[in-house]
């Protein structure tokens, strides 16, 4: 069974290794360039000491301007990949057997079909886990200087580093296996599995992920000029948190009405720098920031990976059970 699984899937395994090799070949030199610039701009000492000085802010901004673009491209190129790769490998597992009629050959040897499927799932699933973990390691290494500045919660970091890439791919693989079993055709199964993958994956990223743990709220001095987004530059030492929301609040911590907010922003635009800060302080306002602290990265990674691997395991269990019960 092990030899047979290898013989059937060795082309895919080879393609996976080529993908890893290509990724490494492209990103290792780039990673070195990033590290050189990181040292050259003196980003490390800034992050260690305190980042609100003018010199440090401009150094980090220059560094991010130089490399944030490429790291965002990385996300654009690679974020659909786990879904596609997983769906294609998974859908072909049973879809091809049905399409070519070879299920009647495969399951009339002396290996019961449920064991046949279970062994294949375990072997291919393990290979997927090892390969995606290797890809994540390459991405993590490549991005780590950028992550020091913008934090590992940025989508380009969180979705590709750690465990989440492996979780997504296994989830798409499981969807593909089940779709191939039910639809008995590879291409429709790939399309269905990928659609279902996105239907779960996107709400998790944009809605569910920030709710894994209760976020922390903090009242800051209103004059702090906090920027958000992937190219955000931290204003305090340490890794950047994941800022979910920031708003002006009054002394009691209540949000201020929108009409007042408009007045204030008109006023502050007329003033600048320290005068604006002094004006906001005089009103007794605070900046309320809601965020997930940077040190929750691994907790969130484990929650997200368990979620996707858990659903994947359930789907694969359904597939094995369904094949066992199947009367067609």
């Amino acid at each position, binding site marked *: 069974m092990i030899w047979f699984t290898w013989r059937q899937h060795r082309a895919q395994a080879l393609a996976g290794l080529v993908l890893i090799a290509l990724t490494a070949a492209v990103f290792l030199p780039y990673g070195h360039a990033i590290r050189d610039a990181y040292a050259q701009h003196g980003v490390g000492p800034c992050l260690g000491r305190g980042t609100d000085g003018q010199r440090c802010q401009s150094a980090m901004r220059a560094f991010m301007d130089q490399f944030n673009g490429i790291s965002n491209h990385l996300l654009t190129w690679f974020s659909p990949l786990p879904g596609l790769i997983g769906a294609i490998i998974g859908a072909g597992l049973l879809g091809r057997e049905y399409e070519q*009629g070879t299920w009647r050959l495969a399951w009339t040897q*002396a290996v019961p079909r449920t064991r046949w499927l279970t062994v294949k799932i375990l072997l291919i699933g393990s290979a997927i886990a090892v390969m995606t973990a290797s890809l994540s390691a390459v991405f993590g290494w490549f991005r780590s200087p950028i992550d020091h500045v913008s934090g590992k919660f940025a989508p380009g970091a969180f979705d590709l580093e750690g465990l989440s890439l492996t979780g997504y791919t296994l989830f798409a693989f499981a969807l593909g296996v089940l779709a191939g079993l039910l639809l008995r055709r590879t291409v429709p199964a790939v399309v269905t599995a990928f659609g279902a993958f996105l239907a779960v994956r996107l709400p998790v990223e944009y809605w569910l992920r920030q709710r894994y743990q209760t976020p922390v709220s903090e009242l800051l001095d209103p004059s702090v000029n906090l920027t958000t987004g992937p190219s955000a530059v931290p204003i305090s030492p340490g890794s950047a948190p994941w800022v979910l929301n920031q708003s002006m609040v009054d002394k009691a911590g209540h949000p201020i009405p929108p009409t007042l907010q408009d007045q204030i922003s008109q006023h502050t635009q007329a003033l600048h720098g320290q005068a604006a800060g002094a004006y906001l302080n005089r009103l007794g306002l605070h900046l309320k920031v809601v965020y997930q602290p940077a040190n929750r990265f691994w907790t969130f990674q484990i929650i997200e990976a368990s979620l996707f691997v858990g659903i994947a395991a359930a789907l694969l269990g359904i597939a094995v059970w369904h094949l066992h019960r199947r009367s067609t």
Partner: protein
Amino acid sequence: MSAALETRGLGLRYGKAWALRDCSLALPAGSVIALVGPNGAGKTTLLHLVTGLLRPTEGTVEIFGEDARAGSSQALARVGFVAQEHPLYRSLSVADLLRMGRSLNLRWDQPLAERRLHEIGIPLNKRAGELSGGQQAQVALALALAKRAPLLVLDEPLANLDPIARRDFMRTVMAAVAEDEITVLLSSHVVADLEAVCDWLVLLNRGTLQLAGAIEDVLAGHRILTGPRTDADQHVPGLVRATHSDRHTDLLLRTATERSDLHPSWQSHPVGLEELILAYLEQPAVTR
């Protein structure tokens, strides 16, 4: 004679429609059994139930006295199967297919498979997809025979094969029957393919069993009566089919004896296998 294959009340339902229903059979070991019926009669369903590819909705399947429904390794090892259109992994070489058989089976006779393929001139290093239809059928058969299973099941093995390939295929099957004393169950809708090689007949139509028995006994148990045209004979016991021409009526009867009691002036003569099968398959409601 012990039963190679025994089914009791076997049935399979898809939704509300029964693909096969109430099928009880006992096929003797060592025979070559023809499973005959029109397309859609339930032949493939019955064969897939026997090989464990399908699970019955009701009833039992026993192969050499052991339950085949479990789908266990032991149950699978007792049946060699060549599915319709003899599917193979087309991108695998013949040698890889043999290796697949070796790694997926409890018993595996590699020398036997290699010898058979060598005898008919199929190179082991060729991909299955590059072989002719007849050669692919032979490779599929070699895989099934190398399992050394006591029961060999062939689903429409001769469809899509040219006459030479048909002859070669059946030659291999009959050689295996002679050498290894296996039992063979093969389905076909072409009667002429079967007459020379089969000694047992199972007739299916619309998911129900119509006839099962040794061909010799079946033929001996039917007679055709020919006489002047009449419409009054519909209630003759054992009537399978009545055909009327302008002046004559032919009655196919299930009877072992001369039925001079019916009509003294009628002529009685034996029936051929093909005619018998066609009569059963044409008849919309057949008395069992």
